[in-house]
Structures are given as structure tokens and as C-alpha cells.
């Protein structure tokens, strides 16, 4: 498909010629997101500056039946922003203004291109923060967070993006603009806001977002415990939850990941540990103190041979250092790796970890485990060497791990999204009827199928194709965006 000159001229007229990209070299920049194995060069990239300009673009696309894909910072890991060949990419990069800070209402109104961390920066001095903290938060945008319903290390206590969005301006796939919610909660009728958040850019383009910000906690305590085995660390996680404690984060790393982190950033984790548990508590000081003592007791009871606590910012950062570098550190122990994103019920963690170990042995490939243990969100890293022809085996292993998660009653994805990457895996979690109803919802928003087509719901055309191997994304290489 080729776009007509008249179509391009119309968008140039609406947005200004300098905000419509047609040069092949420049278009190539947009050929993929963080899932670099999927690539497609768009026909056109537009950079609108307002809701009205987005509306003009979408109306033109709708009239000419041109598919379009919205894009934020391109840090997504499921190919949610992979362009459609012959289509238009709508980059929201220029819509990066914080429109209003209303701390009386504890709301901040932003455009979609605002970086996640900038929301917290805008309110930090007043003692507030924006809770969802995906690890790419320095660069990933609020628009992308809304599309993916992003979480982060602290979502165990604070929830996901959907819990922190109270209003959206949405340009529907036919160009109509709707306002969903606002500063107040509970609009009448079905929760449209709740279904648009996390819809991976398939139900329209969000152009303005009202966010809830949260008062900073009185106390924060970060704890680190070293265990002989992941089983022992897993038992400690269960013990903490059973004690009625709700930490803001519980993260686990296994032996291979700890080794890689030591090689990369030398965080000085307990020597010889088969598993490290990182627990963060926040809230009212009296409660945090009491919970911290209880967490230490539980960890030691479960066999922790070393226990550290940090209360100030600098020593907390040190404890987090190894965890935050875990993905990038894998480059020290393997040439290639494939990161999986699956979820299991927390209580099934030990058995699923054992199953992953079996699968690792039977496939003859190493797997590093680093994950959000508190909510059962696993990120197994399958290590392989593409030059040794191990790519296909790595993919099979990653798929088998996903099956193990689903067998345990979990989910295909906890935070990276379905996108292109897992659209073809959806039938492993959802029945044909479930998917058919998803399709009904999508067609109600987008009858012509123009808005981010080929994502989330499997199509026969799409699912015949095999994606390429994972390559380190340019942003990650420079250490800005890492995968969590």
C-alpha cells in the first residue's frame, strides 16, 4: 500500500511539513520498539502537538482506511508500537507538557509524551510522588504506560497504572474525541477508563491523562536477605505474606543472576547466596519498624544466612543496584538472552522454579531468574548463543516456561503486554469465545480495524510468521532503559 501525495499533503498542511516524516532514513528510526525482533518501516511518521492535530491525523487515516500506530518512547517490550507496513506512526513525543498540577485534588494532568519520572519530579518537592515505576521510568512515557497498564517494582502495594489514572481524553479510531473520567472518580456507566488503560493502543489514541499522585510515605526501609536456595527464599516470601505484611516490593534473584550482577556492577551481595531477597517496606514509621523486625525474623527462620537493612537513600540505592542492573548484567555471562514475562500464583513459585530448572536442563540452556516475587511475576532470562545456532532452542524453552506458568494458573504476561510478541500465544490462555468477545469490544471502538492492527488478538495472517531473535535495544545499550 502506498499513501497518496494528497494524503501526505493534507497532514503536512494540518501539522506543518516539518512534523511529517517521509524520508526513508528517518522512517527507519521508528521501525521497532524495545522488541527489536519485529520490524516494519512505516510509510509515514507524524508528530502532532495537540488533541486537535491527533484528531486531524486520525480522521484522515479513517477516511482513507490507512492503519495507524501510536508511539511513545518506544521502550515497550512486546512490539505494541511496531509499525504496520504501509501505515502511519503517530509519535506523541512532542506532546510532552505537564498541563496542570493540582495538589489540592492530588491530581496532575499531563500530555501522553511526558516521561513517567517527570510526573514525580513535578510534585516531589511538595512531598508527593507518582506511584507506578516501570524500570524504564526515566524515558518511558505516560501514554505508553496507559497503553500497557505498566506496573513496576512497587506495584505490589501501590497497584498499576490503572489504579492511578482518573481521567483520559481519547481520540477514537474514527477521529471522535471522548472524555473519560476526570479529576473525580466514579463516572456513571461501565468503566470505559478501566478498559482503555491496558488496551495496548488498540482502542484509540490517548492525548491527555489525569493522574492521581500519592503522598510520600513517612518511612521507607529496604531489606536484603541471602539464602542458600530459591526454595528457602520462596518460603520467606510466603511467610511475610502470611504474617499480614504488605511490603511495597519483594524482589528475588537466583544464583546465576547474582553472579552476573556481581560481574557487572559488584553490588556486594552475600557471597555464595543461591538466592537474594530484596524487601522494601514503606508507610507510617511505627508500622514500618515493626514490620521490618518481623521480616527479619521470618527470613532468618527460613534460613537466611545474611541480613542487611537500609533506611537512608544512599544505602537503599546500593541494595537495589544489583537488582536494577540484572538484565543488562546478563551480557557478562552470555552473548544473547531472551527475556520472558510470565505470572504464577505466588504460592506456586517454588514448584514453577523447579520446573524451569528441569526445562533448562532438558533444553541444555541456562536460565537466570529475577522476578517480582511478591506478585508472582517471573522474568526468566534464557541465555543462548545465536552464532551456535541456539536461537530456536531458546525460543522453545521460553515458550515451555510460559506453558509452565499457565499450567500453574498464571498469565501470559504480567507487565510487558501481549502486543505482537504474544498475540499468537493468546489461545493458550483464552478460549476462542473469550477472544471472540475481545473482538466484539475492539470492533465497538474500531469497526474498520485501523488502530494498531495485528496486536493483542491473534489473526491467522499474523500467527503464521516467526519473529526474529531478540537483540539488545539501542536505549538499553546506553543503560537508560532496562527491562524489568
Amino acid at each position, binding site marked *: 500500500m502506498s499513501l497518496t501525495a494528497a494524503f501526505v499533503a493534507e497532514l503536512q498542511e494540518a501539522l506543518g511539513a516539518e512534523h511529517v516524516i517521509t524520508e526513508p532514513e528517518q522512517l527507519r528510526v521508528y521501525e521497532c520498539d524495545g522488541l527489536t525482533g519485529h520490524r516494519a518501516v512505516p510509510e509515514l511518521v507524524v508528530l502532532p502537538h495537540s488533541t486537535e492535530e491527533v484528531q486531524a491525523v486520525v480522521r484522515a487515516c479513517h477516511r482513507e482506511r490507512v492503519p495507524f500506530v501510536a508511539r511513545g518512547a518506544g521502550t515497550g517490550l512486546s512490539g505494541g508500537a511496531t509499525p504496520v507496513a504501509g501505515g502511519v506512526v503517530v509519535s506523541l513525543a512532542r506532546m510532552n507538557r505537564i498541563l496542570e498540577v*493540582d*495538589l*489540592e*485534588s*492530588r*491530581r496532575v494532568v499531563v500530555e501522553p509524551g511526558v516521561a513517567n519520572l517527570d510526573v514525580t519530579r513535578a510534585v516531589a518537592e511538595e512531598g508527593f510522588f507518582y506511584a507506578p515505576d516501570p524500570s524504564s521510568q526515566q524515558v518511558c512515557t505516560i501514554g505508553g504506560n496507559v497503553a*500497557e*497498564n505498566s506496573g513496576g517494582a512497587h*506495584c505490589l502495594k501501590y497497584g498499576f497504572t490503572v*489504579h492511578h489514572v482518573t481521567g483520559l481524553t481519547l481520540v477514537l479510531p474514527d477521529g*471522535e*474525541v*471522548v472524555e473519560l473520567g*476526570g*479529576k*473525580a*472518580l*466514579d463516572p456513571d*456507566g*461501565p*468503566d*470505559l477508563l*478501566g*478498559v482503555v*488503560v491496558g488496551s495496548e493502543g488498540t482502542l484509540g489514541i490517548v492525548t491527555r491523562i489525569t493522574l492521581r499522585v500519592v*503522598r*510520600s510515605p*513517612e518511612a521507607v526501609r529496604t531489606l536484603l536477605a541471602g539464602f542458600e536456595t530459591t526454595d528457602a527464599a520462596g518460603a520467606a516470601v510466603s511467610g511475610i505474606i*502470611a504474617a*499480614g505484611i*504488605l511490603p511495597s516490593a519483594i524482589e528475588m534473584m537466583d544464583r546465576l543472576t547474582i553472579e552476573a550482577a556481581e560481574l557487572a556492577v559488584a553490588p556486594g551481595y552475600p557471597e555464595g547466596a543461591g538466592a537474594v531477597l530484596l524487601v522494601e517496606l514503606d*508507610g*507510617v*514509621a*511505627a*508500622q514500618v519498624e*515493626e*514490620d521490618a523486625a518481623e521480616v527479619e525474623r521470618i527470613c532468618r527462620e527460613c534460613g537466611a544466612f545474611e541480613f542487611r537493612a537500609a533506611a537512608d537513600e544512599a544505602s537503599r540505592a546500593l541494595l537495589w543496584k544489583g537488582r536494577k542492573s540484572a538484565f543488562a548484567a546478563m551480557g557478562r555471562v552470555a552473548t544473547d538472552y531472551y527475556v520472558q514475562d510470565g505470572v*504464577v*500464583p505466588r504460592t506456586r513459585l517454588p514448584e514453577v522454579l523447579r520446573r524451569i530448572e528441569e526445562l533448562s536442563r532438558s533444553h541444555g540452556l541456562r536460565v537466570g531468574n529475577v522476578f*517480582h516475587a511478591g*506478585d*508472582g*511475576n517471573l522474568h526468566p532470562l534464557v541465555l543462548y548463543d545465536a552464532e551456535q545456532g541456539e536461537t530456536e532452542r531458546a525460543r522453545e524453552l521460553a515458550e515451555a516456561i510460559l506453558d509452565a506458568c499457565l499450567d500453574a*494458573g*498464571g*498469565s501470559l504476561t*504480567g*507487565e510487558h*503486554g501481549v502486543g505482537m510478541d*504474544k498475540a499468537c500465544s*493468546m489461545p493458550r*490462555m483464552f*478460549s476462542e*469465545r*473469550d477472544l471472540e*468477545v*475481545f473482538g466484539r*469490544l475492539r470492533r*465497538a471502538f474500531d469497526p474498520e480495524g485501523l488502530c494498531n492492527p495485528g496486536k493483542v488478538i491473534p489473526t491467522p495472517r499474523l500467527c503464521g510468521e516467526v519473529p526474529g531473535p531478540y537483540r539488545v535495544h539501542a536505549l538499553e545499550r546506553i543503560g537508560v532503559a532496562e527491562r524489568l
Partner: protein
Amino acid sequence: MPSVSSLREASETLAAAHVAGRRCRIGEDLTTDGLDGILEHEAGDLTCTVEAGIRLSVLNAALARHGQRLSLDPPGDATIGAVLARNLSGPLRHRFGAPRDLVLGVTLVLADGTIASAGGKVVKNVAGYDLGRLVCGSQGRLALIARVSFRLHPLPKAARTLLVETDEVPAAVAALLRSQLQPSALDVLHPGRVAVLLEGSERAVDAQLAAARGLVGGDETGPEVWEESRMRQGGARGRVRFAPGDLADVLAGLSEAVVRPSAGVAYTLEELPSGSEPQSADAADAVQRLSERIRLAFDPNGVLAP
């Protein structure tokens, strides 16, 4: 009134109405009273999956035996399906949110009998469209809610209530919300009273109560004030939604109400138009048209229409 007691029965009943072009209103022509089991409660995961006909009180009594609760406390004792469909919440909403914030997954029966699930039973999951949230507030117009998975919370070891009587309600509320206290509930019993629920370990609750008193004064009171709040909410005839920063203006315009300041919702004794946020008629129409398209996609024959 036919009460269905299985997914299949619900599917067959609705499919028959769909084919015959007959209406079958949920809660009126069809109820889920027989669909009231707890299918799974994984205490270690703080999750449960229930059939939608179960009453909130029955569910919470069962969960309490394991030291847990579903943190929803609307007035009355609705079924779980009604709690979702009518988007019901109570004082605990201050900290724990509305039904949409606690739903992990649903199984729906559509008007044509199609049984479909969305979400899952794990606390973290972004696969597929979130139909569990979509049906919150849907008033039974989109589908029959048959099964629901929830995120649960541990029962607090201790709970104490502070009651502040004051002529300066907005100032007291602002001071509490500006503080680093973390109440589980904060209601304004307008006019003149603010109730604060503090939950947690005994020592932490004591510390919070002392800190709150230091900030806004008041005296400890028993839990019956929360019953009063729920009663008044249940008996309300109007609802006002507002940006939380507009609390003072909203209170000035009301004679008697229960107000949840952080959510920006007031349940009023007066009959008032709901939805006070300024929105142009055009914009409201656009949302209406979108809702209608979704309703038609789910229920083309209008089986579930009121």
C-alpha cells in the same frame, strides 16, 4: 423469578431469551441467588474466586476465618455481582478503592449465551482486554457477571476510630490528607464531623491515632460511626462527584451528606443531579454513543435492557 445455579443454566436461559427476542433483566427476570459458591480461596496468594450470587457478608465471614477480607464495605448486603454492576463501595474505599480496583478477572455470560472470561486469578496480569473493569458500573446492561476473582487484604490486627467535631471540616480534612498518616477510611459526616479509621498493628495504630489527634483534635469513638456512615450512604437520594480540591465549595452547597473527600464523592440527602464535573453536552454525548456501541456489541437484541 428464575434463579440460575450454574453457568450453563445462565447461558441457556439468556440464549433462549436472545433467540425469542424476549427481555431478561438481571436481578429481575433472572437472579444468581443459586450461583453463590466460593470456588477457590488461596489464602497464601490473597486471592479468591467466587460465584457472583454470593452475598458480601457471607464471603467476608468465610474469608475472616483465614484472617482476610475483601476490602469493600458498601451499605446493605448486596451480591458480589451487584457490587460490581452497581459499582458499590463504602468507607474503606479511601484506602482500598472501588470494585474496579480489586477485581482480577471475571467470567461473563453474554445475552446470547456466550460464556467468556477475561483477566485471571493472579494479582498481576495484562493479557487481553479488562472486561472485569468494564462491567463495573454497567448496571447489568452488558452481561451477566457469573464469576469474579478478587484481590484480598489481611484483616488488620487492630483498628481504632477518631471522630473530630469541627466547624472547619475542609481544613481538618486537608490537614489529614496532607499528613503522612495512612487511614483506611476518612469520611465527612456533613455537617460538622470527620471520622478517621486507622488500621494496622496495635502499636502503629496507637501511634497514628495520637498523631492524628495532635493534628486535628477529636476523640476516639467506637466503630458504630462507620455503621452510621453506611446507613446514611444507603439512604442517600443524590450523589455528587467533585474534584477533591473542591471539597469546601461542595460542602457549602449541601445541608446533609456523607462525603468521601479523597474519592470526590458525596452521598446527599437531597436529590441532586449526579456528575457535577463540567463537561460539554457534546462530549457527554460522545461517551454515550461509545457506550451504546459497546452495549450493542454485547447485547444486540436488547435482552438485558431495563
